[in-house]
Structure formats: structure tokens, C-alpha cells
């Protein structure tokens, strides 16, 4: 039997029962659309996270305190180990290819303006380079300058959310707010930045780091800790030099802290490391979603098998007639296999259309970034075809094995 005839016969019998064919395809349609949408949503999310992280400064190296056992041997400052304020100066002065250094130490305070009280607000002590290093723009006013840093001047720059909550429509620059027991003058307000890697940049107050050291670290431990810093940001002039800078910082800080290179009291990571950690999280999420979508494809396939089995039983007499006039078992098998394949391929195509338009709807109205991956389309369509062959095989085989005498007698 010619392939063209096989396809004609199969499509004719499918179109003669349109509703049933549509319902059978529905499982495949949903499965394929689900695969495409889920992959589009997760790659969209990943791209968005990457963009967000990159938007907080490119070529960034993070140096963070880590209280390893190796640091206990004693260092420059105290016996507890970790980064100190002077480390930042040392990096800025002696490591080549460094474009900017910013330091960060945080504390939590209650802040007040008029009768508005905000509790447990994160106060971030930092240095003038912070805006450059983290690429945050000011909406109003200015950032901390070198003089204020040197004199622990009582100035504050507000995150967008904090500014809105405290001042509403009032112009904030020049106003005084209470932070803990201190009165600070607002000199600047940041533009909105949003949530990046779980940190809300808009819900913080930025002050000179020296002010944090001198006046705001009020616990016993903090006072002993003195000019300890949580994190040092280093921007590198060119991507190529990142590895070199990391090595230099490692050497310099190990020497300054008097700790062995293999067990330092600090750790260095890059923007790329953070993106990778984030991707790993979304990756496992994506695999889970792909499984869910895959399962719905299999369910769709079982639907096809179910209907095809019913169809074989219903059409037993037709099969007998075809056999009597010369259809071989092979001919009968191809006919039913082709029907299953057409159902799954047409279902797959419709699923692709729904998948792509669904992804668009999600990003347009669902505020969810989506990126339709061409690979996901190939994958989904390929799986649909595989499902068609796999689940069409059993019914087709059943049809091919029918005895023509029994089939002809079937009512």
C-alpha cells in the first residue's frame, strides 16, 4: 500500500469522527503546550535573574568575612578573624586592575520622622564608591562624599521605599530623621532598584560606614569588633583580569591577616558564582517542571492508546473487509499506527501554537518573563511523535493480529 494512500485512509477515518479526534488530541495539545510554556517561563526567569544581578555592577568581585578555624592564629587586628576596614584601603592601593572598592557593614535600627516610626530597618554603612560599584542611580540629591566618610558626618541616603514611607509627597532632601538615637540629615534618595537575590535595595538607609563603626554598632560584640566589615566590593577594570585580581586579593589579605592561603578567614566570589548558584536553583525547578509536563504528555499518549483500542474494536468488521480484499497485517498495522501518529503530530502542532501564544500571554499579562526556546519546540514535537508511535503500537498490533474470518463475522 502506498504511503499516500495510508495517510489518506487514516485522515479520512479521523475526520469522520472529529469530536473524538479533537478530544483525543487534547491530551497531547496540553502536554506539548505545557512543555513549551514551562521551559519558556523558567528560562525567562533565569534570564531575568541574570540581568538583575548584572545590573548591580559588572565585573564585580565580592570579598566576605568567613570565620574559619585558620583565622584563630591571630591577625593584624583581633583574634576573631574576618575582614577589617583597612583591608579595603590596602586592596585599592596595592592590587592592580582594581577600578573601585566599596565597603559594607550593616546594622538594624528603628527610624523615625515626625510621627512615622519604622522598626528594624537595615542600615548600610558604606563608602563613596558604592554607587559606582553597584551601579545604583540617585533619584534626588547626592551620595556620601569623602569628607563625610572621614568625619563620620550624620548624613543619610534613603532607599526608594523608605523615602516614600517616611516622606510621602514631602521633599526629603535636607530633612532630619532619627536613626536609633542619632539625628541624620537626608542628602539623597535612590531610584527604585527592586529585589535582587533576595535583598531589597529600596528598603535600606545608606550612611557613611564610619558612622556605623562609631555610633551605631551598639552591642557589646560589635564594639569589640570595631571597624570590622561584612563585605568588600571590588570592581575590576576588565573581565579578563578578574582571576588575576582574585589571586592578588587572596595573597594580600592572607598576608595582612597572617592566615595560611589554604584556609583564609575570608572568601572571594564573583558575580558569575552568584549567577551560577541562582541558576542551579532554577535549574532543578526547571527539571521538576519538565517532568510534570512530560507526565502530561504520557497521559496524553495513554489517551490516544485508549481511543485507538476502542477504535480497533469498533472497526473490527472494517478490518476484516480490508483483510478479505487483500490488506496484509502490515497494511492494517500501518493504517492504525498512522492514525495514532497523525493524532499526536497534529496535536503537537496545535500544542506548539498554544505553547507559544501561552508564553506570550504569560509575559504580557502575567508579569512573568518568558523566553520561548526553539529547542523546547523541537523537544516537545519530538516527544509528541514518540508518544504517538509508542502508544499507537499496541492498538495497531492488535488490529493487525485479527483473524479475518473472526473479524468478518464481528457485528
Amino acid at each position, binding site marked *: 500500500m*502506498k504511503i499516500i494512500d495510508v495517510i489518506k485512509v487514516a485522515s479520512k477515518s479521523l475526520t469522520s469522527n472529529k469530536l473524538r479526534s479533537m478530544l483525543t488530541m487534547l491530551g497531547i495539545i496540553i502536554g506539548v503546550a505545557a512543555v513549551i510554556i514551562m521551559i519558556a517561563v523558567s528560562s525567562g526567569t533565569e534570564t531575568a535573574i541574570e540581568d538583575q544581578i548584572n545590573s548591580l555592577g559588572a565585573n564585580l568581585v565580592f570579598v566576605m568575612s568567613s570565620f574559619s578555624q585558620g583565622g584563630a592564629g591571630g591577625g593584624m587586628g583581633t583574634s576573631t578573624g574576618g575582614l577589617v576596614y583597612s583591608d579595603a584601603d590596602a586592596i585599592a592601593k596595592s592590587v592592580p586592575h582594581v577600578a573601585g572598592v566599596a565597603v559594607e557593614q550593616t546594622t538594624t535600627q528603628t527610624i523615625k520622622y515626625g510621627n512615622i516610626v519604622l522598626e528594624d530597618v537595615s542600615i548600610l554603612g558604606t563608602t563613596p564608591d558604592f554607587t559606582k560599584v553597584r551601579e545604583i542611580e540617585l533619584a534626588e540629591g547626592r551620595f556620601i562624599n569623602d569628607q563625610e566618610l572621614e568625619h563620620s558626618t550624620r548624613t543619610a541616603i534613603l532607599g526608594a521605599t523608605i523615602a516614600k514611607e517616611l516622606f510621602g509627597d514631602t521633599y526629603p532632601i535636607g530633612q532630619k530623621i532619627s536613626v536609633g538615637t542619632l539625628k541624620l540629615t537626608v542628602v539623597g534618595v535612590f531610584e527604585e532598584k527592586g529585589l535582587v537575590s533576595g535583598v531589597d535595595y529600596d528598603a535600606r538607609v545608606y550612611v557613611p560606614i564610619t558612622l556605623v563603626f562609631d555610633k551605631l554598632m551598639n552591642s557589646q560584640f560589635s564594639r569589640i569588633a570595631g571597624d570590622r566589615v561584612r563585605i568588600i566590593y571590588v570592581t575590576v577594570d576588565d573581565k579578563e583580569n578578574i582571576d588575576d585580581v582574585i589571586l592578588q586579593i587572596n595573597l594580600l589579605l592572607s598576608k595582612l591577616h597572617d592566615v595560611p592561603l589554604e584556609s583564609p578567614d575570608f572568601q572571594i566570589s564573583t558575580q558569575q558564582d552568584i549567577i551560577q548558584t541562582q541558576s542551579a536553583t532554577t535549574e532543578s525547578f526547571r527539571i521538576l517542571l519538565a517532568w510534570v509536563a512530560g507526565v502530561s504528555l504520557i497521559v496524553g499518549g495513554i489517551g490516544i492508546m485508549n481511543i485507538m483500542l476502542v477504535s480497533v474494536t469498533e472497526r473490527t468488521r472494517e478490518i476484516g*473487509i480490508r483483510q478479505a*480484499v*487483500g*490488506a496484509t497485517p502490515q497494511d492494517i498495522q500501518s493504517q492504525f499506527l498512522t492514525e495514532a501518529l497523525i493524532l499526536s503530530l497534529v496535536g503537537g502542532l496545535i500544542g506548539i501554537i498554544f505553547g507559544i501564544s501561552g508564553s506570550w500571554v504569560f509575559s504580557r499579562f502575567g508579569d512573568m518573563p518568558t523566553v520561548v526556546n526553539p529547542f523546547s519546540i523541537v523537544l516537545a514535537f519530538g516527544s509528541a511523535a514518540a508518544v504517538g508511535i509508542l502508544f499507537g503500537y499496541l492498538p495497531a498490533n492488535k488490529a493487525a493480529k485479527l483473524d479475518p474470518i473472526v473479524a*468478518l463475522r464481528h457485528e
Partner: protein
Amino acid sequence: MTDSVIIRTDQLKKIYQMGEIEVPALNGVSITIQEGEFVAIMGPSGSGKSTLMNILGCLDSPTDGQYYLDDQDVSKLNRAQLAHIRNEKLGFIFQSYNLLPRMSALENVTLPMMYIKAAAGNQVEMTKKAEELLGIVGLGDRIHHQPKELSGGQQQRVAIARALINDPVLVLADEPTGNLDTKSANEIMEILHNLHQSGRTIVMVTHEPDIAEQTQRIIAVRDGLVELDHTNGRK
């Protein structure tokens, strides 16, 4: 009439296995049918005439014995080979017509051509030949009708056209008039006689003596054996 042999069976046996019990349906049937003969096979139900018909129609294989169809031993062929034989050498006419319900008369008639092994026939020739045959059986004006739009006699005439489409060496008719009223039955018998006159070899199973009487030769089957084989004297 030439002396060319279309059917020759040698001690055909068919034994059905029903669990532990063996049920013999044919106990050694040897018959010979020449080209151009019109033969009726008769017998009560359970006589084995259906089994014999199934084997002659290559729908079933004998348990033992030989069956030569058109000088070819078909008793040991597999299912696919038998399908090709049915397609190329046999034409079937059934009691219940057995047309495909959602196809037009024309499509039903061309159906066997779809399964030709060589896949030679082109669409236009196929259609032309089918139209011709439908004309011969008197349905030239109903070629696009579906079976449900045709009377029983008309459906059986479509089935006859279908049986002839691949130019078979043998036409097998299984109670072709069993479902028809006398008038339609006579019309069908008329067509079969015409086919016989034009040289076709026809084997017909029937249990109606007056239908059987219209043939050249009657083979009566009982208990899986040929009980009687006599010529009718008709030409």
C-alpha cells in the same frame, strides 16, 4: 471452456483445537474445479462448508492436505502471502455485502486496488475501471452513493463490482442472495449468470436448493466430507 484447473484440493483437513478437544471440520476433501465452472457448495450448518469456503478463499489454512489455486500451492503460505493471493486472484461476495459504510460505491469498488502489491494502478485508471464495472452491474448512476443510500440488492451489486476489480481467477460467493428478497435475488443471480457466460469461474455457497439448481454443478458437503458431486446438466 478450456481444461485449465483453477482449484485442486487433495485430502484437505481442518481440525479446530477447542481446549483439550479436537473438533474436525474437514476430514479430507478432494475436489477439482475447472476454469469457467459455476459451482454451488451445499450442506447443512456444521457440515464444514463454511470452513471449506474459508480455505478456498485463502482466509484460513488447512491443518493438513494440499490446496492448489491457479496451479500454486497455497496451503502453507503465511498471512501476508495469503493476503496477496486474495488481492490478486480472488473476489469475494458476502451474504451481508460487507461494504465500508462511510465510503461511496466507487470508493468501495476501488478498495482492493489500494492493496495491490505492485502498486501499479494509477488513480485515473482505477476510477475508470470501477465506473465501468458499476455500469455493468447496473449502478452507473449511483457511483457516489454511500451504502446506506442503496438497497440491499444494490449494495450486493457494488460488492460484485468490487469482487471483479482486480480481475480475479475465481469469484467466491457466500450465500450472496441470503439477505435479499426474491426479486433482488433473481437480479443478483442474473448478474452471476452473465459473469459465468463471460467466462468467470464462480464458487457459491448456498443452502437454498432453487438457487443451487441454477448452477452447473453441485457439491454437497456433510460431516466434513464431500457427500455428493454431480453436474446439473446446465451449461
